[in-house]
């Protein structure tokens, strides 16, 4: 989605208002939970639905 919008991690973190470290955790899938407000902010910036950035992968 970020590639589609041609947006870098730094730019996204600045626009969403979260740190690079947290964004990295989110991107690598290490995050244990995502706050609804974070999800809302990311979706708003990337102009997409939560389903576009979340994916269920079976272990």
């Amino acid at each position, binding site marked *: 989605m970020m590639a589609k919008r041609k947006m870098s991690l730094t730019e996204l973190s600045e626009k969403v208002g*979260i740190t690079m470290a947290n964004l990295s*955790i*989110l991107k690598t899938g290490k*995050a*244990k939970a*995502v*706050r609804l407000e*974070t999800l809302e902010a990311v979706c708003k910036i990337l102009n997409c639905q939560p389903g576009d950035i979340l994916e269920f992968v079976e272990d």
Partner: protein
Amino acid sequence: MKIKFNTNIVVNVVIGVVVVLYMIPFVPLMMRGVNRGIPGKGDITNGITYNLKPIDPVVSIDLPYYKYISVRDSIKNLRNFKNQNETNVSGFELGYVAGTTGSYILCDTCTVNGYMFAKAHIDDRKEHTQYFIQLPGWKLKATANDFYNDDSVKFFRENNQSYIRKKVIYKSTKNKKDSVYNQLHYVDVPVPFGYNQRLQCLLVPVSESTRNVINIILGVCIFMFVFYMLYLLAAFLKFIADLSKGLSFTDKNVNRLRLIAVSLLIYPCILFLLTLLMRLIFHRYFTPDVIINDALLKYSLKPIGFGLVFLLLYRAFNQGKLLKDEQDLTV
């Protein structure tokens, strides 16, 4: 009011152990209720015949007070010497497991005054020393104050031989109501061990070289034990220091608490097993009158108590760490 058990198994185990620890002192009291009271059906009554002369001379109560005290003390001192409880050589002692000691050998014909004079003039003390491995985890059924119990025994040495004086049944009669009357009398049984009445510990006579080897082994064990205790203390101090820095729920702290809890809980078990191992190693010196020292069990209660507290702390900090990790990884 309803009492509900917690579903957490550790909490239930802790509650169970605490209840058992509080119940232990009451068990002997409950057991004492048996075979007491008026003889009836199934009761056992004992009577004692004093068939042997006293081990030590009895001090006449007709003596003047200060003379009485002086004679009584000299008899006590002589008995102490005869029983080889006058320590000459001290050595390492590893808790209730084992230790080494040595004491003067006193000839039976010597008097205390004569012996004290001789002791001061002995050139080669080694020749006059008997070496022992002392086993504080094992004691005789009797203590000095416990001699009136039917089951208890008294240790003494005569003619360079150790004996225990004990009561045995020599006549048993049964009446119509099924109650039994036992007539007890005293016997002196030779035993292969020595005994320290004051410390209440068994003494195994050994040669000087054996004593030296055991002493070195004990020294190494004590050094390792002290080192490990210091390591645990350092872990605890680091834990406190981390808390003061605000680093509470970290992997290191959880591991430290687990190490301290496990060490404190395992320590009494190891102590108990080593004490049993001593019995296996020196089994030929043991008789049925030698029992495990109950002080060992009392001594074990403290580490178990502290161990349980640290186990609960470990559980709490582990839970806290999980919550913290979750919190840290929530974006």
